[in-house]
């Protein structure tokens, strides 16, 4: 699957040193291969890519980036080796489209498989898995089994809530969804109330939120659904099972419209050199089989209707997802980010 990096390195260095073109091999784009630029960690997509290779004989290469993926493809231009883009957040998908590094795909199979609210109306991107942004609540200290997002601003939770940075993708998507439903003014009021309820300055990650419930630092934490599954099954670090056991999952609703979900998604790169294979991969990711592998391995919700989540995920309760199209929600990202700064959410409760 991968060439020797030492060799590559030497080739690269030779390239710099002698600056001659003869010695250079352009990255070999062999037949029957798909190059993936991914915001999604290789380990998470490996099972599903292995299944794809087994089925089609097409090899996959994954390049993981954490920032600037769109900028890199744009800079590479027509020479970009990228075929397929995978991301973990709706905003990255819409940004790829805005930056002009994707191309539209009108594929009957994919369109039939994926519900319209989880794909771009013009076919530039498609959702592959879903995750709910939910409330982790202490089993001991929280009597409620139901909460709405609006309830999180209720003063009765003063000093009880933990969350990671408000500028994190997952939180910005949640706030964008609230803006889409409520408008900016109401959302800002809500955010002020929510901020006053924080137990501490936003920091850490979603798992740290669960741990803080376990330690008694907070009663409620905002987190993604799949982390709960990952903690429950963490045999290597069994203490995380204790964290998961100390909490229950509450699916909040936006005034009855449902729980905010985000997607991990895919897009076809604009200058995809292996377009045919790339489309095959995208069709595969939208198939029953791939959706099932995903659901089982990473504790996410399949995007496809009719494919069930894993038993552990189902044990959290029923997900009633907000049906507002994600393309609509993503438009409010900038407003959400500015609001987080304006309200000073990341400064914590005291200020």
């Amino acid at each position, binding site marked *: 699957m*991968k060439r*020797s*990096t*030492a060799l*590559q*390195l030497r*080739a*690269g*260095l030779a*390239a*710099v*040193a002698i*600056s001659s*073109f003869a010695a*250079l091999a*352009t*990255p070999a784009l062999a037949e029957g291969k798909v*190059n993936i630029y991914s915001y999604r*960690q290789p*380990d998470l997509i490996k099972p599903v890519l292995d299944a794809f290779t087994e089925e089609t004989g097409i090899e996959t*290469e*994954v*390049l*993981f980036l*954490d*920032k*600037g993926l769109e*900028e*890199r493809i744009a*800079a*590479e*231009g027509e*020479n*970009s*080796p990228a075929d397929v883009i995978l991301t973990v957040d709706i905003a990255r998908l819409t*940004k790829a489209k*805005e930056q002009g590094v994707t191309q539209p795909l009108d594929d009957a199979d994919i369109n039939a498989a994926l519900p319209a609210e989880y794909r771009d109306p013009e076919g530039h991107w498609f959702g592959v898995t879903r995750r709910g942004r939910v409330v982790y609540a202490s089993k001991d200290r929280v009597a409620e089994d139901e909460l709405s997002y609006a309830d999180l601003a209720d003063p009765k939770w003063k000093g009880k809530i933990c969350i990671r*940075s408000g*500028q994190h993708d997952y939180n910005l998507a949640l706030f964008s969804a609230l803006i889409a439903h409520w408008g900016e003014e109401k959302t800002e009021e809500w955010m002020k109330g929510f901020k006053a309820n924080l137990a*501490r*300055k*936003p*920091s*850490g990650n979603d*798992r740290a939120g669960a*741990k803080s419930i376990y*330690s*008694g*630092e907070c009663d409620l934490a905002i987190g993604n659904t799949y*982390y709960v599954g*990952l903690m429950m099954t963490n045999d*290597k*670090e069994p203490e995380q099972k204790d964290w998961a056991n100390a909490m229950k999952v509450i699916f909040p609703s936006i005034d009855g419209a449902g729980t905010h979900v985000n997607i991990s998604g895919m897009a076809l790169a604009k200058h995809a050199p292996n377009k045919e294979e790339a489309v095959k991969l995208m069709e595969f990711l939208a198939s029953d089989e791939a959706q099932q592998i995903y659901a089982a391995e990473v504790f996410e919700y399949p995007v496809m209707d009719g494919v069930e989540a894993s038993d552990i995920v189902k044990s959290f309760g029923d997900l009633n997802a907000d049906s507002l199209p994600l393309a609509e929600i993503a438009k409010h990202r*900038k407003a959400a*980010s500015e609001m987080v*700064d*304006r309200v*000073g959410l*990341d*400064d914590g409760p005291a200020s």
Partner: protein
Amino acid sequence: MLKTGDPSRHAASAASWKHAPKTKRDHHPGALGAASIIAAIVLLPVVTLMVIALSGSGADWPHLVQNVLPRSSVTTLALLIMVAAATASIGVTGAWLVVAYDFPLRRLLAWALVLPLAVPPYLAAYAFVEFFDFTGPPQTALRALFGFKTGSDYWFPDIRSTVGAAVVLSSVLYPYVYLTARVVFLMQGRNIADVARTLGARPMKVFLRVLLPVARPAIVAGVSLVLMETINDIGAVEYLGVRTLTFSVYSTWLNRGSLEGAAQIATIMLALVLALIFIEQWARRKQRFHGARATHMKARPPRVGLKGWRGLLATIAVLAPILSGFGIPLYIFGGYVSRRLDQFLEPALIDAFLTSVVTAACTATITVAAALVLLNAVRLSRTPGAAAIVRLASMGYALPGTILGLGLLLILTGFDNLIDGLMRQWIGIGTGLMLSGSAAAVVIACSTRFIALAEGAIRSGLDKLPPHLDQAARSLGRTPAGSAREVLLPLLRPAILTAAVLVFVDTVKELSATILLRPFGFNTLATYVYENASRGVIEDGAVAALLIILTALVPVVLLSRALMRDAEATQI
């Protein structure tokens, strides 16, 4: 890499011949030309960012000025001041104790003091949170001792704060100061200390009034490296919930879609760093400290033995920062590793290890060579302009890694696509992404980022050498190159070794530029750790994290031994 521009080098030097007045200084067009090219290459990505900044409309500013910058500037400033004070105290104290005194475990601790350098700040942040958190040893012990049940029963300082971030960053960054200060103390001529002592000064006074001021340039060099690393950090501050200017750079770019706005903030940060450095240089513009003779560079006073409680105190003072910056991360990650020993044999990890070592070795070689060329140009030209350009060339280090990486990405892809287009036109065969699609991009990026480390470390050594050494060698018939080779380089050995090790270790740790610019299949230990950390299972990256530390350990130990040997061989 340095040879690439040979033709243009001649062009550049020819141009300088035409315009500059014909003085003796112009007799080194080769050396100066090579330095200009290196400075230009290193400055290009920074210039690119400035161009991006200038292309912006300024539409982000009302929001930034009103809601973001006031607070994040104050936070950044507070963080910088705390980290500077802490690293300077720890680094100088450690270096002085180790060089001037003898106490239990001194030899071991002398190199162990460098260990925290091997811990990437974001991993340190994670380890500190785990350690000082509710489930960590101190709090668990507290609860067991006093019978507390939950976290709300007692108060415990929160590591997730600006002060906490300063503690974390100081714990892993002080070795920059320690290393540069130690080099100077080792190269310290004994004569000035002796003179002060014969005039009746007590040892403490000799240190404070004589040796410390003499070491000031080196300490400043070390502290400015620390400050640049602090200002460009995003991983640690983000995890600890500290909103610095760098955090604003990223949220402006990624969350509000304005790369221009981000570049504008970054440019201002850069201007601030530059201003700080030049103010400091201006403040000591009239100070010059050199040894009188070459032998004085190496001869040091014998170590003062510390016995009894004094010795113990010295041991504790030196041990504390090591335990904090190295012990805590080792405790946390060692725990994870003990449950994942099988990972050591994973081919992917071995592959990442080899890639890290090769990349770091290449980068260290290139940056040290480049820094020598730059500093040689300063030596030969002796104009403030040349010195300023060299300092400027190393400013990229203060930029957030991904932002510098973006500047470089645009340069490299622009170059590749240009050549590719030309080749297609001329011979009908494209060359593709020659640099940006290969590992060369990563080596270039790391070299560009870390040239400041090499330049700073070597310059602080060079500053200690009296100029008349060079002059004497030249008047005895040595060419400038001959003098450099036979007189200066041997004396600079400790500084050069230190520079190489700093760059090597930082390249092994480097993440943000590597992850943006690497080709397919190119995994370093740092990217391996990060892939796991970024999906919330940092535990699975623990083995690679430990390997980073071990990889960095080898050159650090070798360096320490070399320095000690140098020092002890010349001790009378």
